[in-house]
């Protein structure tokens, strides 16, 4: 064959080797672009407008949507509600999950069945979780209400009074997320060599000391990951639980940012305001993630 041909042939192969990765990425970028970036840009644009329900009237209002958001007492109340909801759900959720993981790490016969049972809440959608807990907490026919009545003699109106409603959605959220947290904790626990514990036992360390000095530090990468994943869950997916159980009520007391966004967008049809709230949420998540990775990462013990 002609040497020039071989040269060109080689060039083409080299070029295509460089191009193929990018070509393979095109479908993904198309989908991300169409379903995530494009709507995000449109939302950003819309947040500066006042829009009629059918979109036939638009009115540029600059930062007015954001101003009225930050000035409104209900938004401030929702900020507090969101903070309480997220922090309590994650903290209590992680503690309970860790305790369950320790228990589920024991080598007893039938442990697999227990693990499956504990994991199953995560397999249902937040809406189903909401339905289940609504039923359990129903003041007339719910098992939890009945148990409370028999044990404490108190008739709590779980979903219709404050702060019971907030506690109810926190409990439902923790319940739902148990499986997710436990799976990761279990794998983390199983990655800790038994030799560490043996060495500690020989040195005379008690169970509590072993837990806080060995288990917790060595689990910290997992905990770090789980915490930020749980933030995402409680900020966004919890919408399903809130919508089914309390619809943001009573009053405004179980309305988190995401629920208010849904309400402003799809019940009040105020899409300009909902877009503004969307942008605020993006900023909050961005700031939280940044702070988290910059400062909290220092506390993580990597081997």
């Amino acid at each position: 064959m002609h040497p020039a041909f071989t040269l060109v042939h080689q060039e083409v192969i080299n070029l295509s080797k460089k191009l193929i990765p990018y070509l393979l990425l095109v479908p993904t970028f198309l989908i991300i672009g169409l379903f995530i970036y494009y709507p995000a840009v449109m939302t950003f644009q819309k947040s500066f407008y006042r829009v009629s329900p059918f979109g036939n009237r638009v009115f540029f209002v600059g930062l007015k949507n954001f101003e009225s958001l930050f000035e409104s007492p209900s938004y401030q109340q929702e900020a507090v509600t969101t903070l309480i909801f997220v922090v309590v759900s994650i903290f209590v959720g992680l503690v309970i999950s860790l305790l369950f993981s320790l228990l589920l790490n024991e080598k007893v016969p039938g442990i697999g069945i227990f693990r499956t049972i504990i994991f199953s809440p995560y397999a249902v959608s937040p809406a189903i979780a909401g339905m289940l807990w609504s039923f359990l907490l129903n003041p007339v026919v719910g098992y939890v209400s009945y148990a409370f009545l028999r044990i404490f003699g108190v008739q709590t109106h779980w979903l219709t009074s404050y702060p019971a409603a907030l506690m109810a959605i926190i409990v439902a959220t923790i319940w739902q997320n148990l499986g997710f947290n436990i799976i990761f904790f279990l794998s983390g626990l199983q990655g800790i060599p038994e030799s560490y514990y043996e060495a500690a036992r020989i040195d005379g360390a008690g169970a509590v000391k072993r837990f806080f000095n060995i288990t917790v530090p060595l689990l910290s990468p997992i905990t770090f990951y789980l915490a930020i994943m749980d933030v995402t869950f409680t900020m966004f997916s919890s919408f399903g639980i809130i919508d089914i159980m309390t619809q943001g009520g009573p009053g405004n007391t179980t309305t988190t940012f995401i629920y208010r966004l849904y309400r402003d967008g799809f019940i009040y049809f105020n899409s300009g305001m909902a877009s503004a709230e969307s942008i605020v949420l993006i900023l909050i998540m961005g700031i939280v993630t940044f702070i988290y990775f910059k400062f909290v990462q220092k506390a993580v013990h990597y081997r």
Partner: protein
Amino acid sequence: MWRKFMVFGMVLVFAVSFLLAAPVTIRFWHAMNGPLGEMVQKLVKEFNQTHPNIVVKADYAGSYSETLSKTIAAVKGGNPPDIVQIYDIGTQMMIDSGVIVPIQKFINEDKSFDVNTLIPQVRGYYTVGGKLYSMPFNSSNPVIYYNKTLFEKAGLNPDNPPTTWKQFEEVARKLTVKKNGKTIQYGFTSGLIGWFFEQYMAVQNALMFNNGNGRIKRATKAVFDSPAGLRIFNFWNNMIQEGIMINGGPGWDNANAIFASQKAAMLLDSTSDVGMMLAEAKQGHWELGVMALPHPANVPYGGVIIGGASLWMINTHNTMKEKAAWEFLKWLEQAKQQVQWSEGTGYFPINKNAITKMMYEGFYAKYPQYLTTVFQLLMSKVDYATRGGVTGVFPKIRATIEQALSKVFDHAMTPAQALKWAQDQADQAMAQYNSLYQ
């Protein structure tokens, strides 16, 4: 060559005639689920069978909010349904949408349709600025269900329910039963639903908004922070504080469950639940009574406002489809269909002749509970107060009033403070919405 043309010509003629003879397809989005949805499908099937040149495709589109949401998206996407069911408080939003065809247009053109067959109160709700915009379909009323068996147990005459607020409180007092210091039965319960507040305003012939409740001109201010409004807040709050009423919380289901399980003897609810309540009473072996809303004795009686939804025609710029859609709407309004719909669902008929028919056929004699539902409405005045308010931000205003009531029941605000707060919020929301339609 000739043959080719002939074949081609025949195929063309065949295709064109096929197209011309093809039935017109109408898409109808509704928010009726469960047995209500089945009833809709039944009616649609009957219409399709009796009108071979029209095919109506009815689809359940979710709740009222979801249906409106989907309609907005479909309009923006350029492929909207032909007929859509929109809730009562969406009326101003639909008028402002610029994408609907007011029914009045067809009423003016079609001499075969007599708009006077519509019950005046129902017609009045969907008439704004002198035009009937949508075809009424499922209309409801507020009523108070009561447990006749519990009435008897308390020594009250079950066939003599209270008609004034004072009587109502006395009855609720008698029906509240305590055991070992705990209340095991409340006289009254109600969900925290803004619609009920609007109803009691109409009962007192009071307006929610200015400009004739938004029916003369676009409403610009809320006016429900009035003596009438305060009376309502106090009426409920006093009963809650006294312990003769239990707060059913947000939504309908909780309060309904409390009443159905006989933990409360009276329930403020809608006529659309009459079927369900009759079934609950049968299952629980107690007798269901239905009473009209009581009114304050010293205030002139106005009436009640209809709730529910109506059918709107979307402007698809397709005359054939619009004609077909109009045929469907006309047919639904006919007495025969209204009788079927009402007897099967508990919504009362919107057609006067249907009511007469059901009367003569003995339906109301057999089910007196259904009669109360119609009776209260027909006794209502037809004026701006009883026709109900119209504004583009009604969903938000209704929720605001619900929040205000919540604040009152939780002692976070006094009734007067809460009412004023609610009105201020309403004014703000209306101003923002109206700024789009300067």
